[in-house]
């Protein structure tokens, strides 16, 4: 090897070392959101924690965690408590607005069998659009007042739309838009952030303790937790929307809830739905 070749070889080594050490700093790489890897790890965590639970059964929340409760649920499904809400939702959905139009005019496929695609990221608006939000926007666009996000009318409408999607797997997309990735990451952060005087995060109950009891309740796993929404809760003696679930969770840990459909909740729904991609819609559901 002559001197010139030796120098080229040495320079090559230096360049390789620079590439290896001086590329993207590891800390930045570790912080870059990777939804595909997240969803894979999320599913792996729950399926390994509960090896006896079938993947599609996670959508049944606490009923998937306990055999006795599962049997109770099967019996309850013979005369489901959400049936009245479902009937009400179907009627509301098909009744035209005062201007003659209806909900079907606001949604793809006339609003039938589309629940699994919500929430989605609207690239025009740069924000997450949930089904509840889309329903109220539809009402307002047609001259109707919006419904409360936490009351029976919204629960009934979403119950009917979920019912028409039963069995269809969640299919949440994250478009190639940095704002969509940011919304996803914000939702993830919200999910894991401790809040309220009790210093709980969503994950404290639904990742660290699913299947355990908190007072009389059996905690549901986070995997598939939104697939059954909206739900009839015996504790509430009525139906509850996703908005109602989020705000109630916050107040239960002594945190002041945000307003329904604030960005944080929309992003949280986006994250939780995305990591449950592939699991079937089972709403409306019933819970203790």
């Amino acid at each position, binding site marked *: 090897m002559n001197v010139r070749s030796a120098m080229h070889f040495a320079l090559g080594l230096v360049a390789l070392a620079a590439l290896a050490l001086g590329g993207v700093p590891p800390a930045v790489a570790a912080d870059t959101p990777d939804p595909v890897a997240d969803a894979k*790890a999320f599913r792996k*965590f729950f399926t390994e924690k509960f090896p006896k639970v079938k993947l599609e059964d996670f959508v049944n929340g606490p009923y998937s965690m306990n055999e006795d409760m599962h049997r109770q649920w099967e019996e309850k499904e013979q005369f489901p408590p959400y049936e009245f809400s479902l009937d009400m939702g179907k009627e509301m959905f098909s009744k035209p607005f005062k201007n003659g139009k209806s909900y079907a005019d606001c949604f793809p496929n006339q609003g039938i069998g589309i629940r699994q695609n919500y929430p989605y990221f609207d690239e025009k608006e740069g924000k997450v659009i949930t089904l509840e939000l889309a329903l109220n926007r539809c009402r307002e666009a047609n001259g109707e007042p919006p419904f409360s996000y936490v009351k029976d009318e919204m629960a009934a409408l979403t119950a009917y739309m979920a019912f028409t999607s039963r069995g269809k797997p969640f299919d949440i997309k994250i478009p190639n838009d940095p704002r969509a990735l940011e919304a996803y990451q914000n939702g993830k952060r919200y999910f894991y952030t*401790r*809040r309220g005087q009790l*210093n709980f995060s969503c994950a404290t109950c639904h990742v*660290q303790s699913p299947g355990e009891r908190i007072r009389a309740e059996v905690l549901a796993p986070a995997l598939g937790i939104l697939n059954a929404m909206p739900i009839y809760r015996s504790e509430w003696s009525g139906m509850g929307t996703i908005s109602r679930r989020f705000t109630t969770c916050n*107040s239960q840990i002594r945190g*002041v809830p945000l307003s329904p459909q604030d960005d944080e909740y929309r992003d949280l729904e986006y994250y939780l739905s995305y990591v449950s991609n592939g699991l079937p819609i089972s709403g409306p559901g019933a819970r203790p």
Partner: protein
Amino acid sequence: MSVIRSFIFSLISALLIAAATSALAASSEADFKAAYAAAEAANKEAGTLRNQWTVTAAAMAAAKKAAESGDFEKAVAQSKEAEALAKASIFQATDEKEAWKALEIK
């Protein structure tokens, strides 16, 4: 790790509240107004961090009620408790800006 963090968090909250509610002398309406304003400011800051606590609001409401009935000693004590709670919620929100990552499924 999260158990230690929770313990430290609880300890700080308890110390803040204990400090806030101890060593009370006879209080006047002016004392109440000053204590309430401090609680309000801290709770407002917690609001900008999107992390207010229901117990802070409850303590502030109790302070106002006590002041309305002329019990300024209680009103000051409740205001100071509200301020301490609000400060704990600010501490929590600030700490969680990075701490949430420790809970993440990877």
